[in-house]
């Protein structure tokens, strides 16, 4: 028949498109942690049930629509009206819903549980970036959450201004960051890698550019990373960088940004102590290379209109020094 063939064609096209799309995408059914794994199994169970239900019920609709067409007044049938309603409308749905209720309980019982010896991380959502603090290691970074693979994580979530929502599709579901309320998300990551996350609660003009990266590393690599941030280098690495530091301190930068070990202690913008090591800038909006960094400093507004960092004019020579300094902060 033509219609099913066409349907199959469309379905195949969609599957193909999805398959191409998932590459490099924060695809929730490409799970990298136990929570996302559980939810993925729930999804495939639901998908199977849904596909069967859709095909069967749609089949009933088509047969119902066409079977009586040639008769005078409608075609008699052995299935009574009440039979349809009681079986199709109540009994079968009830059984399916029971299965789903079981799946819900089973999945929720196995995720987000307190575990021993968790790594504590405090995330604060701000318009439109993420402050990431490691309270036990006493340092703060931004827009990048590093975690050791396999270790339970206890992520505290707070909002500094409006509601945001923390979402890394490959690791698990969302948890909102709500002013005046401390939320906790407990999760684990199974596989090393960099996973994109994004704010999922509308929070204003740059809600679209409030992303972040979760970087999962081997415990050893994580420890090195954390240790480096616990004890940041004491001063600029060279002449140019030293000039850059002076430029930074002279400019308005220091009023909004913190660089630990210096006089810059502002908290309006992200902590820049390790900005040179970050993969992206502006809450995972543009890559962290020299060109984008310069563009960001001179005019963050073209990259992220409405962001809370004003355009800043800096002499070209000063800018060179400043860039060198910031890029040396690793």
């Amino acid at each position: 028949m033509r219609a099913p063939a066409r349907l199959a064609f469309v379905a195949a096209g969609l599957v193909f498109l999805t398959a191409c799309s998932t590459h490099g995408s924060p695809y929730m059914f490409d799970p990298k942690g136990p929570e996302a794994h559980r939810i993925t199994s729930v999804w495939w169970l639901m998908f199977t049930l849904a596909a069967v239900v859709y095909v069967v019920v749609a089949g009933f609709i088509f047969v119902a629509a066409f079977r009586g067409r040639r008769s005078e007044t409608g075609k008699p049938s052995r299935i009574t009206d009440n039979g349809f309603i009681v079986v199709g409308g109540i009994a079968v749905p009830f059984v399916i819903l029971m299965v789903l209720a079981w799946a819900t309980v089973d999945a929720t019982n196995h995720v987000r549980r307190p575990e021993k010896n968790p790594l504590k991380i405090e995330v604060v959502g701000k318009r439109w970036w993420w402050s990431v603090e490691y309270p036990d290691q006493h340092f703060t970074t931004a827009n990048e959450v590093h975690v050791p693979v396999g270790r339970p994580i206890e992520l505290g979530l707070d909002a500094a201004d409006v509601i945001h929502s923390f979402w890394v599709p490959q690791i698990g579901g969302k948890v909102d960051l709500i002013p005046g309320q401390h939320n906790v998300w407990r999760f684990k990551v199974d596989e090393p890698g960099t996973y994109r996350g994004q704010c999922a609660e509308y929070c204003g003009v740059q809600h679209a550019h409030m992303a972040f990266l979760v970087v999962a590393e081997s415990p050893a690599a994580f420890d090195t990373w954390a240790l480096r941030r616990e004890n940041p280098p004491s001063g600029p690495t060279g002449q140019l960088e030293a000039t850059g530091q002076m430029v930074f301190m002279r400019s308005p930068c220091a009023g909004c940004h913190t660089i630990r070990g210096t006089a810059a202690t502002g908290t309006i913008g992200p902590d820049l102590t390790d900005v040179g090591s970050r993969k992206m800038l502006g809450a995972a909006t543009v890559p962290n290379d020299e060109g984008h960094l310069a563009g960001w400093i001179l005019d963050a507004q073209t990259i992220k209109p409405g962001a809370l960092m004003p355009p800043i004019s800096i002499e070209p020579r000063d800018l060179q020094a400043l860039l060198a300094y910031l890029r040396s902060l690793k």
Partner: protein
Amino acid sequence: MAIADIAPLGVDEHELEEIWSDAPGIPGFFSTVDHKRIGMRYIYTAFFFFFVSGLMALVMRSQLSAPDNHVVSPYTFNQMFTMHGTTMIFLFNTPVLAGFANYLLPIELGTRDMAFPRLNAFSYWIFVLSGIFLYASFVVGKMPDGGWFGYTPYTSKVYNPGINLDFWGLGIVFVGISTTVGAVNFIVTSFKLRAPGMTINRIPIFVWAVLSMAFMILFAVPAVTLATALLELDRLFGTAFFVPHLGGSTLLYQHLFWFWGHPEVYILFVPATGMVSMIITVFSRRPLAGYIWVATALIAIAFISFGVWVHHMFATGMPIQAMSFFSAVSLIIAIPSGVQFFAWIATMWRGKVEFTTPMLFAMGFLLIFLLGGITGVMVAVLPFDWQVTDSYFVVAHFHYVLNGAVVFPIFGAIYFWYPKMVGRKLSERWGHISFWMMFIGFNVAFFPMHILGFLGMPRRVYTYPSGLGWDHLNLISAIGAVIFAVGTGITLVNWVHGRWWGPKAEDNPWDADSLEWSTTSPPPEYNFAAIPVVASRHPLWEQHPLPHAEALVDEEGPKSLSAEGALHHQNTETTGLDARPERALELPHPTYLPFVLALGLAVFFVGLLVKATIVGAFGVGMALVGLTWWAWRTDVDLS
């Protein structure tokens, strides 16, 4: 089948006309209380907003059709999705259904007007004025941008200092008045003004659906009114209901909003299913299967819909036990919908289906709602919802439900009732074309959004980077949106064309079963000279000829049932369960009062908006005068 004529009455139609008709021109326009004129007006106005809001959707889809696109600025985009949602819910879907209910209830129940005709006019004026109020923000270039849900603290004065959000907050409070008084009118009309013999188990299913809707409105709308009113108190007068660091709670706002917000989905969906039941019955050429089941399901939905609101808040960090309850109830609510669904299938199964345009829309509805319902069950599953909430999956889901399962029935209803309302027929051919474009465009536009959600695309983003796998699907979606828009445009043209050039419609062009088809197309101002007497669920199919109530009057019934009652401008009250005639009711004559009262309230809201006490006081004064006058003049006219 023959049309069930009402026997000739021996009253002069000209005389009736004179008693019932509105003044011509502008005075009549502002003073009418005729439910049919008001109903049509509701529908026209709502569709105006539908097309405006649809244009905004097209702009948004084109902005998202490619990564890092610059069709509109982020500011404009955020205003557009706010106004798109607000308009569709408050200024299109809710009022267009109220419009159909207004138009159809009296003629479907066999009476001469609504229970409170002036209240009816009032609710329409409030609706228009609140629409103008909300869109005035566009004229002054300060459209609200807090999302249609307006979550605090983003919508608080601190983070949203402009007047933009006051348009929204006050506008929502304002339009809520219209919805609420409308609901009261529907309830009283359906219980007290049915034709004699239309016992409770003979009420047309559409009326059951409207009743269910009206009860939900009565209990749900106060919550959103409260939410937005408290928000405005915070904004305008510095209270702190939702300000966390002063002891307020942002979650309180969410609870209030969704306590209305979820029933609202059913407030829209339930009357749409009522329309589908009517259409499927007529074009399957047999009575609806499981009438009692369906009526019960409609009522059950109204109850259960109040126990699911928290599933909009599964990510807010509530205790799992609390959420599990709402998860379970959200699953359960699928059952009444399943009952309705299989009642429709059963009706067609043992009927003879005729593929007219209304029926096509009903079938399209079935196929779309089936998917929207299934994804609805999915999002009730707590852990799955953690992943998909606030993602494009949810955008897909609720467009399948609110666009597919509400707008499709509404379009079907237009094709179905247009001949009755306008007295002319629409082109079936263009109706078919419109349907297929809408159906295909709809699925092309919204199906890919499910996958976008899986790929991690959140809602309400004005742009996205390339390389995340979102590009093609968004482009496909934009193409679908255009096809869908053209499809709706064709119906609009068909509609305008039919109004002037369509062939004249007979009284019962579809050979339908319910009472509205027994009167002329369009019906006279008084609907029925003599009120019909009902002895069946499908009077026009089973009662030939349809008797009128003159005989009842001879026995013990009030004179208002007969044409004499029409001459006296009267309606008849009947008992709630078995519709025995009780007494005559005077119907009010045309009056400016509803307009004056509504205008007074509008002035009051403008006063609040611009913080001008004098203006506000003037508005209150005007409204008070209107109210007092209203209470005084009962319009008893026993001449």
